[in-house]
């Protein structure tokens, strides 16, 4: 019987810890200002709107587990965009808007993303480390 209160405390502590486990530990979308000229939170919305996750695995986007194109996990640390050009913001923005302008035979479609949306999307992708 004496063990009961301890068990209760243990449960409460465990509950709080599991809640904390859901926190991103300060790794918020604003934590990585980049030179994209975009807003990562709006980028997340744009990524969901244009359904990038149908083809790509994208951390932080619900249901984005596509296997058609490459995973975008740790995208900020990748060396190349489209296997063609250096992974710098201007190239990424160009790639998102018109992949064919960099790699004419790519399967990735141009989805009619405007420049601001492309910058926002790039801003989000550069939070993926």
């Amino acid at each position: 019987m004496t063990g009961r209160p301890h068990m209760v405390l243990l449960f409460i502590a465990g509950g709080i810890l599991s809640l904390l486990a859901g926190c991103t530990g300060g790794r918020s979308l604003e934590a990585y200002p980049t030179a994209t000229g975009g807003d990562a939170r709006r980028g997340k919305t744009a990524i969901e709107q244009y359904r990038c996750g149908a083809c790509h695995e994208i951390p932080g986007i619900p249901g984005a587990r596509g296997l058609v194109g490459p995973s975008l996990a740790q995208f900020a640390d990748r060396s190349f965009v489209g296997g063609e050009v250096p992974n710098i913001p201007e190239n990424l923005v160009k790639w998102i808007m018109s992949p064919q302008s960099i790699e004419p035979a790519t399967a990735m479609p141009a989805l009619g993303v405007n420049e601001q949306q492309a910058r926002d999307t790039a801003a989000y992708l550069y939070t993926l480390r």
Partner: protein
Amino acid sequence: MKSRAALLSTVLAFLLLAGCERRQDMLYTDGPGAGSIAWLSWFVFILFCVVTIVMWVLILGGILRRRGSFDTHEPFDVGGGQGWLAIGGFAIPVVILFVSFILSLRGMAEFPMHEDHEGHNGSSSVAPDIRVIGHQWWWEVQYIGGPVDQRFTTANEIHVPVGRPVNIALETADVLHSFWVPKLQGKVDMVPGYVNNLRLEAAQEGVYRGQCSQYCGAQHANMAVIVVAQQPKDYEAWRAHMVQPASQPSTPQEIQGQEVFLSAPCANCHAVRGTGAGGIVAPDLTHIASRQGLAANMFPNDDADLEAWVTHAQSLKPEVAMPNITQFDGVELRALVAYLRQLK
């Protein structure tokens, strides 16, 4: 403390319910069929509450009405209580059950009884306007009312005119499915080798979602159908368009896409009316670009999802009949999608 916790959890449960999307709500309905079922549900629920309260009051009264004392028990009145039994145990239940029975029958009148839609059951047989055939895991929709040249086949999306009852024959091509659009009408099973009938009517314009509600395999949960209720003139315009053969590709990319489509395995299973593609085991693609969803409304119908679906259906909807088709290069794939996207 215990009762407070119970109260709190009940309130929380209701708050959660309040957050539910109303697209498939069977209590907030938009059609006479579902409306009469919802009415009956509320009636039975309230009746249940009233009967329960009366019973608990009687039990409480029986407990509190002390006869004799702890020292001297009064003898049991073995002969008494016949009146309670006759009225409370027989007469009232008979009345309640009889009223419920009549009201249930009234509700059942919303469902036409099983009739052979070929008309073998005599003059009472109603010719269906639409035949919906369940497949693992999509819905084939055949508009079979009217003259032969006004008939067509589509998939996963049923259009109906507002305020007009539509008779639907329900069949299955494989296992048991169940057709249920909760805001419009009750649930009717699709049974192998058997035709069931359903009369559907939408009172308001809108897009109503339904889901297969009889477990039918791995992707049962992703087998959705939508009913689009339109004003009669919009509905007639939609029908007139659906009867038309597929639109012809116009840009060089779309023309290349059609060549890709016809030379790839697509046409073995899918039909595009007006081309050589005549497969009937998969959804008709003649007007695929006009539909709202892909893969039985599992995904929105857009460039990204269509491209992903064509090349990698198995990861998006595992075990679906559609294979991963990986024979295209990037240019061919984009052309194919451009072709399909202009099949409005």
